[in-house]
């Protein structure tokens, strides 16, 4: 927040670090999960591919999580079966993104959402 502008809203910066490819999560590399969840019969190879894919994504999520924890220490962290959610109201995403970039975390490794609420109970 610049010095001239007094905040009239609260920003929640939300980072989603998914393990699977969700419906809204579009990537060039197709997740094996996408295919497997629609299939009735699986080969061992397909399941092995999924495990490799999940392992890589969980490792990536952990690295991003560690980077976010280095950047800021006030996070609300929720571990879900399909990924990790990290939210904070005490640091703006505008300040977090350059720090992630400095640490070599590519934009493709997380989903960033911002949510706003009123700062006071006004109209």
């Amino acid at each position: 927040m610049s010095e001239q502008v007094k905040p009239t809203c609260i920003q929640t910066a939300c980072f989603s670090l998914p393990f699977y490819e969700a419906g809204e999560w579009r990537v060039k590399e197709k997740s094996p999960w996408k295919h497997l969840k629609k299939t009735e019969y699986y080969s061992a190879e397909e399941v092995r591919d999924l495990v490799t894919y999940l392992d890589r994504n969980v490792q990536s999520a952990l690295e991003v999580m560690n980077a976010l924890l280095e950047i800021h220490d006030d996070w609300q962290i929720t571990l879900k079966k399909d990924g990790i959610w990290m939210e904070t109201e005490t640091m703006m995403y505008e300040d977090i993104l350059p720090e992630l970039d400095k640490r070599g975390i590519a934009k493709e490794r997380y989903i960033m959402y911002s949510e706003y609420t009123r700062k006071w109970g006004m109209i």
Partner: protein
Amino acid sequence: MAEASNNTKTNGGGLKSLYLKEDWWAVWIGLGIIVIAFIANAMGGNLKMFTPSIAGFDDWSTVPADLAAQAPKLIALYIAMLIIFTIASTIMGRKPGHFVAGFTLLFVMAVIVQILGSWSAAKAVNLEAPVMALIVGMIIGNFVKIPEWFEAGMRTEFYVKTGIVLMGATLPFTLIIESGPVAFAQATVIAVSTFLTIYWVGTRAFKLEKPFAATLGAGGSICGVSASIAIGSSVNAKKDHVSVSISMVVIWATIMVFLLPFVCKAMGYSDGVAGALIGTSEFADAAGVAAAGQFGDGAMTTFTLMKVVGRDIFVGVWAFILALISVTSWEKDTAADGTRQKPSAGVIWERFPKFVLGFFVASIIVTLAIMAAGTGTEAATAIDDNVSGAAKNLRTWVFVLCFLCIGLTTRFKELAATGWKPFATFTIGVAVNVVLGFIMSTIILNDYWTAVGNHGVA
């Protein structure tokens, strides 16, 4: 994987929102009151014990006697509202002690404002309860330091949303069906024109960032602060930009609370036309209610049709469309691998103002009950008196609490320093909005809104 930067936030909401969100509490409280009123009516009773009314007066010496007569009702209303709102606030995570203290002081102020607004000398200069509450609130809020415990009771949006749900019980659903499409057409023409003006001027003339211009445009055309927040989130606008947009809405909404009623009265517009114009050109629900409240019930009817039915319910659609544009167009160049996260249509529901559902349900229940009783029969009149009448009285009290909160929380020195470019951009949008609002409400649809205002009152 591509960086996703539009909101389809999923970590939250769900069934928990039914008891953690203000919108849903407004629905439960509003509909709960209406159901209780129906039960009381079915048992041959009513809620008049909870509906005090301060009579108009010329002579202050008559006030103590009137107050003494109303005291049991005032105390009953205070206790009922205190219990209901404290339970809701506590479940939503606020400290009950602070809320009780803050609400108590707010209620005392509401009684004082109602008395002042009933004075014939105040009425003569159009200082009725809504405006009186705003002015008193603004003077106190801007010149006196408000303690934290008092602020806990100032739930402006909560009160206005509850009031709007109650308003549903006074607006026949048949009228919403008949006039809603006209309100939607007028509101949409003006909202789209205003949004495009602000967006075009902001991006082309003043070179503002596209998400910033969109957030400003939403604030000036859809539903004020709520729209700035919804669209700011949808397009991932920066915090400074959302702050500036909110400040612009608050500044112009405050000006319009006084300016629009003044102009409408000076021009001699009918209540229906005044309400339609305010519904079109006021930026925030609460401020609009305060402005329309300075006229008769017909103004409140057309205001509600225009603002709630014509504008508010479409904020989710706007959020979805702008999120889609943001992802497919504005962020096209920055996407890492040419693939981007697409917003899901779930945004429409996520951003939908849920309290509006309560408004519609209230309207449907009361309309069906009156039709079932047989329009014009004694039973229908009883429903009108005991259910719609109670809802109307209670909504007035809730709105006065809301107007006080608007005044008390609108601290001009705490508004963002906006810079001249966003101010000029937004102001040009305001001009377009008001001019189009005047043309449509007072020229093209003058007779229509006058008729709705005259005959559409429950």
